[in-house]
């Protein structure tokens, strides 16, 4: 099995004024082509740091991050990323914000096609009618949705989502889960999803990785055995309930609230 994303023994510390702050300490994650891995862990453990490493925005102090077997040396245009903080460019309309990657990543779309694609995505996340608005005229959840569109507009091979649904209410969120699955089917990508919603991780991912508290290492990996066709009802089966419980327990361990026992 070829792993598109391969993270091995990654260690990283931030340099701060009071010396280095170790954040990642022995991280192993691998995502096969077309796979979707969810990463969960306590706040501040190093999840966003992980996304920056995969995206090539940073280099790890130790260990390897590989895409397609090649060491990641810097950012690549085949990667799409939704940042935790959905920074939109204030001087552009929402539509133009979403179209930004299409202006940068080489592609053969005509101006018309670019716009159509962006409009289509915005409609998909419920932002129809807000295409010409400025980011400052959007609510927090709407901005997050626009940022999601921007991450996927150029059909990236690898999609990194850092808590993309954090500011959304339960129903909008569930809608978007299903939208994401549909998008993945139509335009396959390999995904990494950071989230703190365990149901979300189970619903969307093939595998859930639990990180320990800072400095984070891979503490627990769970394969999710839902098929490609998932419905919300799948979240209410006994298997899911058990899986959720296991994850909850693991996170408690990660936070040092429960003794670490072999799962």
């Amino acid at each position: 099995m070829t792993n598109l994303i391969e993270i091995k023994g990654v260690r990283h510390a931030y340099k701060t004024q009071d010396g280095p702050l170790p954040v990642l300490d022995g991280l192993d994650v691998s995502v096969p082509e077309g796979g979707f891995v969810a990463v969960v862990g306590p706040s501040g453990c190093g999840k966003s740091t992980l996304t920056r490493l995969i995206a090539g925005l940073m280099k790890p102090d130790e260990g390897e991050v590989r895409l397609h077997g090649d060491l990641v040396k810097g950012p690549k245009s085949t990667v799409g990323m939704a940042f935790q903080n959905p920074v939109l460019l204030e001087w552009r309309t929402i539509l133009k914000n979403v179209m930004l990657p299409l202006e940068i990543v080489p592609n053969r779309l005509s101006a018309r096609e670019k716009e159509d694609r962006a409009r289509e995505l915005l409609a998909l996340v419920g932002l129809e009618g807000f295409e010409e608005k400025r980011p400052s005229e959007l609510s927090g959840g709407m901005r997050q949705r626009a940022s999601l569109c921007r991450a996927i507009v150029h059909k990236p091979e690898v999609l990194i989502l850092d808590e993309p649904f954090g500011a959304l209410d339960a129903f909008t969120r569930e809608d978007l889960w299903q939208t994401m699955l549909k998008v993945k089917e139509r335009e396959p990508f390999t995904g990494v999803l950071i989230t703190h919603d365990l149901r979300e991780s189970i619903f969307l991912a093939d595998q859930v990785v639990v990180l320990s508290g800072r400095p984070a290492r891979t503490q627990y990996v769970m394969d999710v055995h839902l098929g490609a066709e998932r419905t919300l009802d799948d979240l209410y089966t006994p298997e899911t309930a058990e899986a959720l419980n296991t994850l909850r327990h693991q996170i408690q361990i990660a936070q040092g609230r429960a003794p670490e026992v072999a799962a």
Partner: protein
Amino acid sequence: MTLRAVLVPLAALVIFGLLWELLVWANGWPNYKMASPSDLWPAFWKFRWLFLEYGWDTLWRTVVGLLVAVIFGVGLGMIMGFSRLMRDALYPLLVGFNAIPKATVVPIIALLFVGQHDMNTILIAFLISFFPIAVSVSIGLSTLEPEYRDILRSLGASNLTIFWKIALPKTLPEFFGALKVAVTLAFIGTNLMEIVEPHGRGLGHLFDSGKISADYPLMFAVLIALALMGILLYYVVVALEKIFAGWAERSPT
């Protein structure tokens, strides 16, 4: 809104003119100490054709010098904004260069390029006005929030693309602020050349003529004409700013 945008500055100008008139009148200052606005009309009228012709000379050279300054300043600012090394190396040189009074540089330029009056004038206008632009661009780049930069970097964009798509638009308000300063400096540059190295053209020359014949109202009239042209150019900059950086203006509520 548009009416207000015209009326407020106009009112300010009129008030200023009245205060000036009052000041001169109350102090009973003679023309050779300070001319008052009412003294200026005859001077304007008498030399109206020269004002038009020389004003145009001064204006186009200033604008060309300014354009060169914008291009050069943006380029220099980019170099300094992206590279800490270049910033450390170039800033002191630039500050040193700019601390030298340009009036003393004028003769050197004039001697280097004898007879190239237009070019020399444009050169001085450029030399005197590029610094604020370079500073503002370099600061805009070096203080760009990493979040913004990362959005483009994660797409594998080059530094140049980051500049065009993020840094420049984000820094436009400061850039236009610098441009407003540069406009005034460019005018000073043009006039410096016209006064210090006279060659019979431009408002600087008219000022000189006024000085030769001790015609103080004419001298003041030239200064006012310069101020008005500065204001004119300022409104051109404001118009450009409205188009390109209108988003940045925050309403307080």
